[in-house]
């Protein structure tokens, strides 16, 4: 079964009041949380001159573009244009929204018209995100215990223990980003180091 949802990060990496860059296939997005915790994801192009909104900053319940300071509310509508302080910005000026959902510690993205819900990963614990300069094939060649396509799962043994691992695959132009989760009782440091070693092995496969 394929889903249109793609993981773009882990919730603990996006606290309130922070904006980050996200990606859904080739679409770059600005993903942010307002001071009160409202989540939004927009195309990473400011409606003014197309600069990256992910370079902007959150103030209260708004995101401001760093370039000329246009201010957007969580609904994507432009609320304020500093160069024309008395103007009420027309409704048509709005950031192009994607669906963004925080579920089981994961930030999921899909086009706004998505109808199904994101995949559930109950009982797992978010670990960390890390990017690889190789593709999925090299990753699979590096670790035979993992199976799947967008969501890789498997039981991996390291440090004498079998650990349940789940890797959410986010494609990017020059490789993949993995958002890793593990069984609830696993040691996070050990899993993080295993991920580092896995990346090393996978990237080496490409160099061979």
């Amino acid at each position, binding site marked *: 079964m394929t889903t249109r949802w793609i993981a773009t990060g*882990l919730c603990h*990496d996006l*606290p309130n009041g922070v904006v*980050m860059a996200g990606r859904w296939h080739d679409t770059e997005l600005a993903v942010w949380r307002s001071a009160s915790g409202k989540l939004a994801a927009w195309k990473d192009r400011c409606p003014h001159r197309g600069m990256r909104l992910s370079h902007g900053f959150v*103030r209260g319940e708004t995101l401001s573009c760093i370039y000329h300071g246009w201010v957007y509310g969580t609904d994507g509508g432009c609320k304020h244009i500093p160069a024309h302080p008395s103007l009420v910005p027309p409704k048509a000026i709005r950031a192009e929204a994607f669906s963004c959902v925080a579920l089981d510690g994961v930030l999921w993205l899909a086009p706004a018209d998505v109808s199904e819900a994101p995949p559930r990963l109950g009982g797992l614990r978010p670990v960390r*995100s890390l990017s690889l300069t190789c593709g999925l094939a090299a990753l699979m060649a590096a670790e035979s215990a993992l199976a799947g396509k967008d969501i890789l799962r498997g039981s991996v043994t390291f440090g004498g223990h079998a650990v349940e691992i789940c890797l959410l695959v986010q494609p990017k132009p020059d490789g993949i980003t993995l958002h890793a989760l593990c069984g609830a009782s696993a040691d996070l440091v050990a899993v993080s180091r295993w991920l580092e070693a896995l990346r090393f092995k996978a990237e080496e496969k490409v160099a061979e």
Partner: protein
Amino acid sequence: MIRLYDYVLSASCYKVRLMASLVGLKLEHEAVDFHPGLEHKSAAFRQMNPAGTLPVLMDGDLILTESTAMLVYLARMSGPEWLGPDTPQALAQVQQWLAFSGRLAASLGRARLHDMLLYPGDIDALRRDGHDALRELEAALTERRFAGRDWLVGDAPSIADIACFPNVALSQDGGVVLDDYPAIRLWSLSIRSLDRFVEMPGIHRLHELRPAPVEV
């Protein structure tokens, strides 16, 4: 008064200005025409610092030419808590990060000089080395966060964080994007929210902490 031979766009000079501000020390700034004047390569300047590098810190008879040594000096003078916890482990870890900051300068810092001031260098190799160093920093900060800590050593910010911060925060100037490093992003936000944090061109305070501009 402590004098700093300074260039506004230099990551290493900024490191020292930031440290001085954080520990509440006022420095006397001597602006050096680094670019385009190459004043730091002049005979007069080399009498003070034979290496012909910036920054240089002078306090009476003491002349320091390594920015990490300057951090130690300023912290020991005015904010010893910035030296990190006084345990064998922590002292060694701080030294480890001070040395590591040299690798950031040699990779991210050189890439920036290449792109901004047309310094020679193999830009692809510099960026690759920069990413390797960032991966190490990201892994370390990730493990610190698992332990509930925001800083490189101990429970509070230290010279280790300040030594590593500038070249990381300026990496985009050298074509190295930080999008793939979530733990570094949060660490950088923590540093930028510190009391008495100072800016430099390319590194801003957190706008969200500033009041919104008042309309007139």
